[in-house]
């Protein structure tokens, strides 16, 4: 069955705090909650605990939600049906 853009609705309905992120820099796979978090910057900055590279940025300022995953090679989340 083809994957469509509509399937993204399901992705962002999931609880990403349980996600495992694979760092685009060093390749380490780590649970999101085990990363180094810098919440006091203008936005949340999440760094790889192995190499300190930025893997995720998340911000809600200015009436917009911003998510940057360019430092993440792979985001893995357990599907609801598998839980």
């Amino acid at each position: 069955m083809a994957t469509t853009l509509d399937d993204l609705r399901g992705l962002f309905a999931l609880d990403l705090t349980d996600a495992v992120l694979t760092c685009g820099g060093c390749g380490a796979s780590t649970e999101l909650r085990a990363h180094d978090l810098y919440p006091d910057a203008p936005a949340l900055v999440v760094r790889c605990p192995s190499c300190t590279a930025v893997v995720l940025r998340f911000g809600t300022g200015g009436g917009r939600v911003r998510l940057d995953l360019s430092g993440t090679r792979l985001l893995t989340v357990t599907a609801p049906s598998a839980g």
Partner: protein
Amino acid sequence: MAVVSRGFHGRGRRDGRLPPGQRDIGDGFPVLTAGPTPHTPLEEWDFVVQGEVDGLHRWTWEEFRALPHEPVTVDIHCVTSWSKFDTHWSGVSIDTVLEGVETAAEYVVAFSDGGYTTNLPLEDLTGGQAWVVDTYEDEPLAPEHGGPARLLVPHLYFWKSAKWVRGLALTSFDEPGFWETFGYHNYGDPWREQRYAGD
């Protein structure tokens, strides 16, 4: 040349020193950081001007300290909405740093220990508008505030005043930096409240 802003006597917004959407933080000086604080030994520290210039210009810490310093008293404005009046710094004017540097570049990327970058028009760093400062309130600049040296560009939001700065890359093309690639305004004028792209 000393650069001294107008005196502040508790008048706050009334004398026009508080940009729109900002609040006076008073004696506080919040530490906002997007990563671990670097602790580069001074014997390994240098400051460079590179990119589209006539060769690499480099100063060791001792050489940088020997450059003419000047006192600077300015108001600073953080994009997270706090402003701080009459901060006292000492540092080297970018005009001094760029003396003798031949370039046709119009843009600068300031880069720092830890990988932080921010981009600015070159004309916003010259003409007595910007410094590399190593002293805050008569003390060596603390690491949490960007020591041993940070950029100071007080007429723009404070994310442009890169902590832990190690150099300037001069370029012909504008290359968005760390926050500018995340939806923050490319220029960041607090008086026009340019917080986010499109503001």
